[in-house]
């Protein structure tokens, strides 16, 4: 089934020849419009996830729905395939159901608004924006239940719906949706903010078409896509070998005490084309860690990553999609079958980036980045305060950015674009908690010539009884190091009750009852290290020790650097120690994953983490267990 386009003017656009300057000027204009979409949204949204943290993704596409500017790639193709209805002037679509838009959004919390732009009765462009809503109903506050087994437990599902028809808001529908959310006021405001941002894009697109002429605008978008395709074709040829490369990584557990789950991918080049094949990836989970991965979105991830690593001057868009083929097995954790639960897809989404990095870097180790903070650990805390008022916190944490060819990974920073932390003074003013500590953990970043960023430790003291949810990962496997760099430290979560009783918490949990005076020690993970740590300038190691970002023992044990009490380097002792340690280690490894195999890792799990090792995943009988 496909959507039917209705135009009052069916005259096709004419491809005209453009001079390169006009093309660059239009490209600039499109970029300005895309940034303006962000600006409008940030200022007016209410969910802290969107507003403070930047969990939102704008896009402007050509009339076929190919993304010309944006960051997560276009999902319009998938949407059009799945939508049975008309696309008309004055329409604005709203959807949140991954299964009805081919994974354009990947859980119910992401509300996607999409609008076709018409000029003189003809479709000329699209723009879309999606943002993460703090709550969309369902079985737990925040709508991200770890133990959900079906998507029906994860809040209201909105199929592709014309929320505006002929530019009239369908209020009944909106009210029905909002009625199913715990914080309707926030959703309403966020919805308005997304609409305002898309309307801004529309104004800019129409202005550009008026300024340059419709045919020029149309042709310029085609050219921009083509320009990107040509650049990517060269990049693929020079960086992707024809020989198959493999990489695999893991999601530690599913929140139901099973794990780890494997994501495996092969990559090779065939002529101009690069092929990614996820054959060997584990089947879908019975819990909500499944990630409905849209193939087109994966292409975009991949393109963006290649551009950033190899040539950041390239402007990216959908133009190169024909140069990539993505194969994802049906029924796998990356393409689960309806109605599998999807809400906690953040772990797999993040891990995809580590897999990509590992795959692409093998062919060009100088460009290889370490594994890192490829996730967004969530913390949710909700309940009634002493005055009987409902409070509900949802926030995303940060950690160690990986070591990379260009330099160290920042400590306690975000891997996601435009995300920021929520100021602690803000949290303390609006929620019943005190944040007693906020620091990055010394030695938690993987050692390397370029150090991985340190993990972030936050100590929350709760002032009211409530419910806590935690979603994190990398508590069992490590963020790996590369080119001789060490893995980063794992994540930990510990709850100390008011009476002093200590509970080591699993990485993923819901409905954790907390009481006034309980303290949560929330520690994320460090970034992997890049390059041989014995070659890192000793003065820089000593600098980090004085700064409190490394310990003296860490400097000695991981870098072979002896730091004197006055924080200067003991030169002779360091040279000697480094020589000895370097010899004992031998050649550096391309990847250091921190374990030999899963069995070995599980064996030492309890001793190292205080938690029982997860049991091997049991897959539903109908899915063929992967080899």
């Amino acid at each position, binding site marked *: 089934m496909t959507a039917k386009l209705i135009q009052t003017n069916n005259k096709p656009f004419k491809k005209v020849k453009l001079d*390169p*300057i006009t*093309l*660059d*000027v239009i*490209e600039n204009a499109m970029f*300005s419009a895309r940034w*303006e979409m962000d600006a409008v949204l*940030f*200022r*007016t949204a*209410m969910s*802290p996830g969107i507003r*403070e943290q930047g969990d939102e993704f704008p896009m402007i596409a050509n009339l076929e729905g190919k993304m010309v500017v944006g960051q*997560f790639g276009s999902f319009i193709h998938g949407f059009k395939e799945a939508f049975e209805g008309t696309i008309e002037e004055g329409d604005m679509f709203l959807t949140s159901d991954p299964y009805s838009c081919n994974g354009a959004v990947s859980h119910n919390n992401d509300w996607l608004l999409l609008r076709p732009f018409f000029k003189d009765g003809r479709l000329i462009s699209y723009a879309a924006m999606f943002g993460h809503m703090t709550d969309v109903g369902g079985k737990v506050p925040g709508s991200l239940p770890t133990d959900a087994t079906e998507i029906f437990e994860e809040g209201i599902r909105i199929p592709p719906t014309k929320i505006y028809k002929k530019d009239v808001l369908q209020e009944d529908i909106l009210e029905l949706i909002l009625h199913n959310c715990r914080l309707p*006021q926030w959703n309403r*405001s966020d919805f*308005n903010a997304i609409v*305002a941002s898309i309307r801004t894009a529309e104004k800019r697109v129409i202005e550009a078409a008026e300024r340059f002429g419709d045919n020029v605008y149309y042709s310029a978008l085609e050219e921009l896509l083509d*320009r990107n395709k040509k*650049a990517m074709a*060269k990049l693929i040829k020079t960086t992707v070998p024809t020989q198959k490369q493999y990489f695999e990584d893991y999601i530690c557990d599913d929140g139901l005490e099973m794990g780890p789950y494997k994501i495996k991918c092969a990559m090779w080049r065939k002529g101009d084309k690069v092929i990614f094949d996820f054959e060997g990836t584990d089947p879908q989970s019975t819990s909500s860690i499944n990630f409905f991965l849209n193939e087109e979105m994966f292409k975009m*991830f991949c393109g*963006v990553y290649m*551009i*950033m*690593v190899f*040539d*950041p*001057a390239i402007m990216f868009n959908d133009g190169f999609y024909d140069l990539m083929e993505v194969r994802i097995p049906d029924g796998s954790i990356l393409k689960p079958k309806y109605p599998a639960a999807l809400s906690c897809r953040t772990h797999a989404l993040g891990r995809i980036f580590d897999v990509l990095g590992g795959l692409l870097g093998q062919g060009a180790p100088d460009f290889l*980045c370490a594994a890192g903070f490829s996730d967004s650990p969530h913390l949710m805390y909700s309940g009634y305060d002493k005055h009987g008022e409902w409070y509900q916190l949802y926030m995303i944490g940060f950690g160690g*950015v990986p070591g*990379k060819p*260009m*330099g*160290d990974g*920042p*400590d*306690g*920073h*975000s*891997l*996601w*674009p*435009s*995300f*920021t932390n929520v*100021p*602690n*003074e803000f949290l*303390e*003013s609006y929620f019943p908690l005190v944040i007693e500590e906020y*620091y*990055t953990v010394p030695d938690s970043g993987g050692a390397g010539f370029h150090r991985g960023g340190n993990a*972030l430790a936050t*100590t929350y003291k709760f002032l009211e009884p409530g419910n806590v949810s935690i979603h994190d990962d990398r508590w069992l496997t490590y963020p790996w190091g590369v080119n001789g760099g060490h893995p980063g430290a794992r994540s930990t979560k510990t709850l100390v009750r008011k009476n002093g009783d200590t509970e080591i918490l699993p990485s993923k949990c819901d409905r954790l009852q907390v009481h006034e005076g309980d303290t949560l020690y929330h520690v994320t993970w460090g970034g992997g290290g890049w390059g041989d740590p014995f070659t890192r300038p000793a003065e820089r190691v000593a*600098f980090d020790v004085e*700064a*409190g*970002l490394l310990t003296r023992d860490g400097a000695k044990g991981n870098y072979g650097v002896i730091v004197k009490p006055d924080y200067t380097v003991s030169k002779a002792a360091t040279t000697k120690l480094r020589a000895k340690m370097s010899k004992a280690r031998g050649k550096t490894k391309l990847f250091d994953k921190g374990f030999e195999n899963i069995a070995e890792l599980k064996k030492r799990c309890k001793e190292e983490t205080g938690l029982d090792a997860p049991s091997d995943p049991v897959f539903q009988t109908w899915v063929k267990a992967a080899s």
Partner: protein
Amino acid sequence: MSYRLGVDVGGTFTDLLLVNEKTGALHTAKVPSTPDDSSRGVFNGINKVCEKASIEPSEITSVMHGTTVATNTILTGTGAKVGLITTKGYRQVLQIARSFVPGGLGGWVIYNKSDPLAPLALTIEADERMSSKGEIISNLKVGQLTKDIKELSKKVIEAITVSLINSFVNDKHEKEIRAQIRKKKLLPNVPVSLSSEVVPEMQEYERTITTVANSYVRPRVAEYVKNLQNGLKKMRKDIKLQILRSDGGLASAKASSDSPVNLLMSGPAGGVSGAIWIAKQAGYENLLTFDMGGTSTDVSLVKDGVAEQSRETSVGDVTVRASSVDVRTVGAGGGSIAHVPELTGALRVGPQSAGAEPGPAAYNKGGTEPTVTDANVVLGYMPSGVELGGDSDWKIRKDLAQDSVKPVAKALGLSVNKAAEGIIDIVNETMYGALRLVSVEKGYDPREFALIGFGGAGPLHANALGKLVNSWPVIIPPGPGVLCAYGDVTTNIQDESSMSFIRKFKDTNKQEVVKIFTDLEKKASKTLDAEGSPKKNRTTSFQVDIRYHGQGLTITVDFELSDLKKKGLSAIGDKFDVQHEQLFTFSLDAEKELVNLRAVVKDKALSIKAPSVGRGSKEPTKKSIIDDNAEVFMEGKKQIAKIYRRSLLKQGNVVQGPAIVTEMDSTTLILSGHNGKVDKFGNILINPDA
């Protein structure tokens, strides 16, 4: 006689403007800047301008000055060694910052973060805790802190900053720490600053970085101001030195040295103030200002003669909470280099810049890469053979400019002329983006504004920008350098005081808010009292930062205190709804929340009139034409333009484009299909041909 003097120190020239306070008579002078110690250039200039006016330096009673010392200290990383005391558990507040990584998806791959302005090695923790409501959770442990400060004092520290969690609601512990440091002489001769005094607002990172940045630039600024003041005092004992603040107001020398974080935008603010002043004389109060220099361009929006303000100031990586004229800077200017990346084959201009050294290829100082200036030279917009900086041995070379553009032209498959035109188009598009940020993105229609172009390269590009944003007329004031000095002289002393007061409307009342505003006004007035400004000359404006409860960012709303007294909080709330609607196309029926309250007290500005140029006929005199057959490349073809000498243009002259108007430190380009009319004050007002 008493005179006041405006001084603007630019990268190349130092401009001075002397005003007779009685008669309003004006004298200007221009001397080369002396970057190693800019006060030398200032005193050279003072001698020159006094000579021109035939007065004694001792007749100058006050000096007003815009400076980039604070900005440069941050950009070059040459500030003080700042120590920092945080709440226990928060030592890494500057290291973690806001966890933000710039650059979009995958941006982390190429992002290297710089070390904090206060090094972690110089940061210690105080064991204490205040709640978000201002109640003490745990008392300050003085013993341990004293020990730690003693340990810290063994390292070289030039300033110490105290920034504790929730100190914006209760500053008790910050004050206690300062008292302890002083009482026990823990850090002799080291200035102590408290975040609760510098910027008593919520958000621990922003409050800390602002306070630290203030301490970081203070010694350099204080030294500069002191040297300048000592030199001036030799001329006249009771001479008054005032420095232009980022928000466009003036501050006393002492206030500037104490709070230099307020000076980070002092330079650009001078240009904006000057633009406001000169445009007002020409009859325009709604302006887009366009100040294009060698490496960057500053734009801002002026509504009803008042520049839009921003609550944040950014310099390089550092963003602080300090009011400033809302100047958006783009990293593109005359020195920006054009290149064609191999993979995409697209034409890019900047962000690399040839700077002053080696400079554009046409300057023949060793530069070979094609810059925006070179493109202007190739196209004939900057006539070759023109002397640079008044040096007869140093002239613009068109052949070198053409050579530099050739490789770009080849990569694009275009002629050198067309490639050069492309470079100009691209850089103009970047500027256009910046102008839209301050206008359309804030709900203003640029067609209701005039565009004023200044700075070294502004007059060359202003006409094209006017075309892009549809802002007419395009105003090119005379003497773009001295414009900043005009700005310095024609602004007023001002100070502001603010505090966080986060309350939903229902949790506070009119009386409480009015009381706070009255106190803030008193506090802000202290600076003006100290400067001896008469009370009757003052005006106060009141502002709130406000949002719908639950929103993150705030909108600043100006209102009259009398309105608040009369109508209560709805006087503020209603204005907010209107502004929200203007900015974002919708308003909400949601609870409103006050966030920050602020009072800004201003002295009356000196009213001076711009000198007039004398009347002429519609046709400029023959004498004013340097070349009536100059070849330019415009709109894809060769055209013949006239070149005029600006100093000989008179009121009423109409310069028909394509034309070039030259003066000592700038060149104005009038495009074909446009004409420039000279007004009484020598401004060129460019409009499209009727």
